[in-house]
């Protein structure tokens, strides 16, 4: 073991791929990529990608301290070795070209004694500082100029031999400090040249200013923690020192007391500043396998620094901070385990001089680890799905959303669907294909079916728009119906009979399951199933309709020979024990659930009794059939509707529905319909999949107003709206709200033309939003769309020609108005008449949109009905909306008691950014009827505020201005 032996490691300051390891020997290594060297030479791996090869080595006997020169011309690292006798020798470990003639030079003190530390200056690279033990008649710190005050060792020997008295030949140090003192450690400061920091006499830190060699000004402090001084790189004034278990940070300008005193549980072995990042100090404790990293935080209070960028700052940094005392520095502490494996204790480390946060550590075992200390990586998701995190070197790394596609996250899927108008298609079934998902597709198909049954009058008196099986089964007085019991013979198996149940409710339930009642409907289902390539299902459906012959025919036509064998087994149906036992074992082995169900159904059918016997009370046990859960839910439910008695059916449906709801299986909507029962199921499904979109859309399309008021539903809708906002899919957002506030007329086929996006609206009676001249419109693009008059009146304005903002500004007020009028060629794309708005909305004639004739500014004009006028006016007056107030009288709607409320919306939309936010100004405000809703209008310009709406929840949404890029 090498423990106990001192091991040190040191990167060369100029050769970025070379370092020395200093133990019993001094070895020079070169670091290369393993790929490049693995074939050629032996190497010591230092990391997963790098290996170190030995370049040269020499014995280190007698060597007390080492430093590598920063002289840039040196082809190989030039080492200064400090020996036990005080001699300092310059050497390169490798024989090489020596342009400066420095190799072999030696420097000796007058009196031999232990050399404690050597340090090359990195500023004046010829300066070498040497720290030595005490001698009462000599100085302990010597500064050598390696070019001048040296002798070559050969010459030294010669001169020794010749005449040791030749004083003139003796080298003279550049400077000497500390007469009769001890220096433990020296290092050059980085904040000014020729400044040396030394730990001395067990209790001092001294800073020598050597710029004027005659004065040698000294700044000093007394501390027990004076060892191992280390100067902050990059010109900072901080100095670190250590003592037993304590690290201190000092400010070289104010040495009286340490800035920081950092306690460590164990004695400190090493302390070093990170050369590539400011304020990062790393300490190594004895017998520790982790490095402790201190990030020193200091608040600056010098305002002079800021002046240079005051142009940008504006009034950013004010003087208020000066009044407070500057808080002292503090540290963020962090332990870094070098390497990933639970490492052996570290004995030394060395920061790489140039590469960011890279260091080389030596374990007690002698192993070398090349490690990069990872900085805090911060990470963030964007609303659009892009991911950003901080990489090395102050870079931001961005991952665009294409990787989303590969991850197939629900947010990606949802966005894709939203872009295709998923859920917004006028016919429910149209959404099924867009979903591209079996469960969702089934859901939409079912909802469409349910809706059509209601519309056709098959299902009446349903409290829900989209009833499910449970709803229809108990629609007439909760479970109060009685079914007619129909004992039936299987026509093709005359010795078999089953009991079927019949009632109007069951018929409707069967229709919901897609089965229909009667053989004609069923036969169609059978043929469909066969055409779909599921002969087993077709056969089972036929058999459940008691048409065993048809079932056998289907199976006989099937491709698979196995199915024909099954047909054989079916045909041989009997009560013989042999057959039943064979069935028991064979059924489980059948691959298809429908085949198993088919066999079990037939086996469960009771043998026919003589006609004069009354049917026994015995109920055939169909549980085996219903337990085939791989069968489709609708088939199972339909089967139950045909063969289970009222009580059993009720129980079965209730239990199944509860189980499906608990699992959050979307198929359960077949049972619950879009009813109150569906809420927990959809909630569960949402929680399992995260698909708030489908749930919100189903709610918007299919829920009754009562259900829409449920807090769960509003939460879904609000969440989905917020998601759409974030994606800036205004069309989808608008259409969603239109659906929520009442299904539009059937002829309304919302489709988002490529070049415009409407503003959805709802609720109120009459709302006009128009945007005038100052909007920076783009040719042919829509400036604004307005939504929602009297529940479902959607008008779209399309400017006929473009009027640049700049031009509008140039025009005077009058001309501006005229210009704006030209702009206003309004084009109503589509009008939709919805249902009446409510009790307080008499069938008032809707005004066609071109109401806004006079607005000449980029204003939002809101017209409201008289009921709202008075309170609105009051509020406006109280709020002192000057401009709004002024404009109020000018509205065309003065007659008829109509208030025109001018909301100063977008006065100066000068830039894209402004517009991009301005849409928010008219954010949906779902106000409580009868109350005012405060809409905050705000954009990057001067603050605006407006009150909009009243009695009739006004929702103006997202003027689509932001789509404009310029």
């Amino acid at each position, binding site marked *: 073991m090498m423990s106990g032996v001192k091991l040190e490691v040191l990167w060369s300051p100029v050769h970025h791929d070379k370092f020395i390891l200093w133990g019993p020997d001094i070895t020079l290594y070169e670091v290369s990529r393993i790929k490049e060297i693995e074939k050629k030479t032996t190497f010591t791996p230092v990391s*997963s990608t790098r290996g170190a090869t030995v370049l040269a080595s020499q014995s280190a006997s007698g060597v007390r301290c080492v430093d590598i020169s920063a002289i840039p011309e040196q082809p190989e690292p030039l080492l200064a070795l400090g020996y036990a006798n005080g001699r300092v020798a310059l050497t390169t470990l490798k024989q090489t070209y020596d342009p400066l003639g420095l190799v072999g030079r030696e420097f000796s003190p007058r009196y031999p004694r232990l050399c404690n530390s050597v340090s090359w200056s990195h500023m004046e690279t010829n300066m070498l500082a040497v720290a030595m033990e005490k001698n009462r008649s000599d100085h302990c710190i010597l500064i050598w100029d390696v070019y001048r005050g040296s002798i070559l060792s050969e010459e030294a020997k010669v001169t020794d031999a010749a005449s040791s008295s030749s004083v003139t030949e003796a080298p003279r140090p550049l400077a000497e400090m500390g007469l009769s003192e001890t220096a433990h450690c020296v290092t050059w400061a980085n904040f000014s040249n020729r400044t040396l920091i030394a730990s001395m006499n067990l209790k001092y830190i001294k800073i020598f200013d050597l710029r004027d060699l005659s004065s040698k000004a000294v700044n000093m402090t007394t501390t027990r923690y004076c060892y191992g001084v280390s100067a902050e790189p990059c010109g900072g004034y901080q100095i670190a020192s250590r003592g037993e278990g304590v690290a201190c940070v000092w400010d070289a300008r104010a040495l009286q007391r340490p800035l920081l005193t950092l306690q460590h549980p164990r004695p400190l072995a090493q302390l070093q500043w990170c050369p590539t990042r400011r304020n990062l100090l790393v300490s190594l404790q004895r017998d520790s396998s982790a490095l402790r990293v201190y990030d020193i935080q200091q608040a600056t209070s010098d305002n002079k620094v800021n002046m240079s960028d005051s142009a940008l700052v504006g*009034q950013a940094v004010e003087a208020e901070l000066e009044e407070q005392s500057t*808080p002292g520095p503090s540290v963020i502490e962090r332990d870094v385990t070098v390497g990933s494996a639970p490492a052996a204790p570290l004995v030394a480390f060395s920061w790489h001089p140039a590469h960011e946060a890279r260091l080389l550590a030596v374990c007690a075992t002698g192993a070398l680890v090349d490690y990069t200390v990872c900085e*805090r*990586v911060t990470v963030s*998701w964007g609303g*659009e*799905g892009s991911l950003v995190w901080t990489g090395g070197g102050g870079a931001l790394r961005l991952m665009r959303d294409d990787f989303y596609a590969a991850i197939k996250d629900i947010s990606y899927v949802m966005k894709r669907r939203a872009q295709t108008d998923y859920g917004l298609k006028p016919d429910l079934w149209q959404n099924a294909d867009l979903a591209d998902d079996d469960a969702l597709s089934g859901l939409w198909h079912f909802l469409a079916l349910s809706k059509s049954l209601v519309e056709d009058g098959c299902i009446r008196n349903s409290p829900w728009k989209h009833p499910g099986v449970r709803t229809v089964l108990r629609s007439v007085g909760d479970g109060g119906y009685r079914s007619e019991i129909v004992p039936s013979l299987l026509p093709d198996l005359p010795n078999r009979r089953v009991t079927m149940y019949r009632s109007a409710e069951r018929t409707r339930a069967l229709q919901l399951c897609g089965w229909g009642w009667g053989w004609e409907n069923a036969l169609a289902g059978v043929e469909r199933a066969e055409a779909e390539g599921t002969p087993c299902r077709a056969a089972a459906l036929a058999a459940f309709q008691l048409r065993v012959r048809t079932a056998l025919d289907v199976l006989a036509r099937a491709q698979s020979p196995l199915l024909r064998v099954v047909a054989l087994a079916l045909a041989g149906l009997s009560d013989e024990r042999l057959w039943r036992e064979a069935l028991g074992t064979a059924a489980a082995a059948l691959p298809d659930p429908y085949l198993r169900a088919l066999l079990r159904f037939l086996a469960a059918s009771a043998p026919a009794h003589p006609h004069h016997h009354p049917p026994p009370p015995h109920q055939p046990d169909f549980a085996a059939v219903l337990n085939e859960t791989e069968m489709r839910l609708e088939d199972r439910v339909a089967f139950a509707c045909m063969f289970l008695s009222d009580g059993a059916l009720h129980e079965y449906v209730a239990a199944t529905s509860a189980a499906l709801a608990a699992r959050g299986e979307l198929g359960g909507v077949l049972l619950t319909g879009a009813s109150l029962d569906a809420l927990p199921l959809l909630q569960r499904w949402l929680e399992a999949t995260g698909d708030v979109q489908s749930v919100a859309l189903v709610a918007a399309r299919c829920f009754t107003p009562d259900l829409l008021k449920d807090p769960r539903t509003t939460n879904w809708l609000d969440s989905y709206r917020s998601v759409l906002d974030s994606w800036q899919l205004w069309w989808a957002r608008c259409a969603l709200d239109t659906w929520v506030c009442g299904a539009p007329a059937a002829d309304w086929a919302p489709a988002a033309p490529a070049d415009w996006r409407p503003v959805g609206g709802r609720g109120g009676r009459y709302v006009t939003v128009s945007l005038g001249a100052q909007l920076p419109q783009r040719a042919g693009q829509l400036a604004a769309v307005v939504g929602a008059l009297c529940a479902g009146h959607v008008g779209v304005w399309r400017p006929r020609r473009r009027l640049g903002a700049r031009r509008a500004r140039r025009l005077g007020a009058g001309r501006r108005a005229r210009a704006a009028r030209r702009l206003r060629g309004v084009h109503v794309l589509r009008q939709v008449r919805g249902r009446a708005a409510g009790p307080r909305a008499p069938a008032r004639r809707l005004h066609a949109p071109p109401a806004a004739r006079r607005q000449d500014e980029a204003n939002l004009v809101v017209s409201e009905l008289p009921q709202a006028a008075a309170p609105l006016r009051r509020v406006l007056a109280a709020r002192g909306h000057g401009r709004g107030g002024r404009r109020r009288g000018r509205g065309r709607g003065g007659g008829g008691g109509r208030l025109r409320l001018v909301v100063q919306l977008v006065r100066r939309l000068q830039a894209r950014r402004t517009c991009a936010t301005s849409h928010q100004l008219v954010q949906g405000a779902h106000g409580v009827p009868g109350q005012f809703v405060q809409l905050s209008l705000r954009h990057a310009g001067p603050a605006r505020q407006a009150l909009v709406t009243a009695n009739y929840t006004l929702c103006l949404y997202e003027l689509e201005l932001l789509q404009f890029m310029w």
Partner: protein
Amino acid sequence: MGELTATNLFESQTILADHKDLIHDVAYDFYGERMATCSSDQYVKVWDSDGNGGWRLTASWKAHHGSVWKVTWAHPEFGQVIATCSFDRTAAIWEEVGDTAASGSEKGLRTWLKRSNLVDSRTSVTDVKFGPKHLGLLLVTCSADGIIRIYEAPDVMNLAQWTLQHEIPTKVSISCLSWNPSLSRVVHPPMLAVGSDEPNTTNAAASVQGDKTTACNGKVFIYEYSESSRRWTRTDCLSSVQEPVNDIAFAPNLGRSFHLLAVATKDVRIIKIEPIAESAASGNNGAAVRFKCEVVAAFEEHYSCVWRVCWNLTGTLLASSGDDCAVRLWKMQYLNQWKCVAVFKNEPVPGDSPPQSRPHTTYIRMATMANPSHMPFH
């Protein structure tokens, strides 16, 4: 994730942020079109997307006198507003002033004005967050001395005026906080989660234990606002998190009946917080447990320390970063099962070229993971 093969390569884009020091936080705005960064160099920078995947620096200013820890955007409804907090013991609110009339070299650079400086803290302000927008314009800060402060701008038009509404002392150092983003005010009262980075020394534990209200040595606390008492009270303390917490984030609620809280501590933790129905909880005079908390996932792939956690828009993907220099994505599988779906490593070969000359794009391998505990990048 059978579709993901090891050959799936995805391009990541590199932007040189040119901060002079470590970047502490990156925040996207509501639409993901703008980005703000803050750094130890005391600067805040704002980047705008050009719509084609490129990003342009549009503002850069010295915002504080110390390291800027966090930056956060207000909902765009309130304008282009960001808040920053710093080691210099202040939090600041900045608003962009749209001035594009400037010409020449100034063109394209936006001006951000400091609208308000919140100087109540006596120690470093460690986190700042705007409240959910349906609560109005709220701002919460927390500081190293453990005080949570909730500010409100009573007039959303006047960003210069912020009133300190609540001051909640916690007695432990608070490092991070997160608003519950739930939109449903009926179901979920305003809620905050705060995380403490107090080291686990015996002293701290003793002092925490000494206080009756905090008889729990967890590191994550839940505060809720009671409409009736008009106070924020600590309603829970997650005892499952015992190690110092570096970051905390509520997932966007998106209609769930429960909340998901990601905690960056020794590991990445996802905690499901399920409110217990009022009727059941109110039995013990309000002192009853309000939540059922369950740790649904704890991943140790980041070695010993996780720095940040962040949710995507739907709360179905979690990104985390940690001591292993990697960003990992965790995806919700069916029914709240979570697993790692991708690992983005910062190149482990720094120094082969100086950072400036690094290739502009790098390729990142997506991990194929049968078993989340076997990470191929180890």
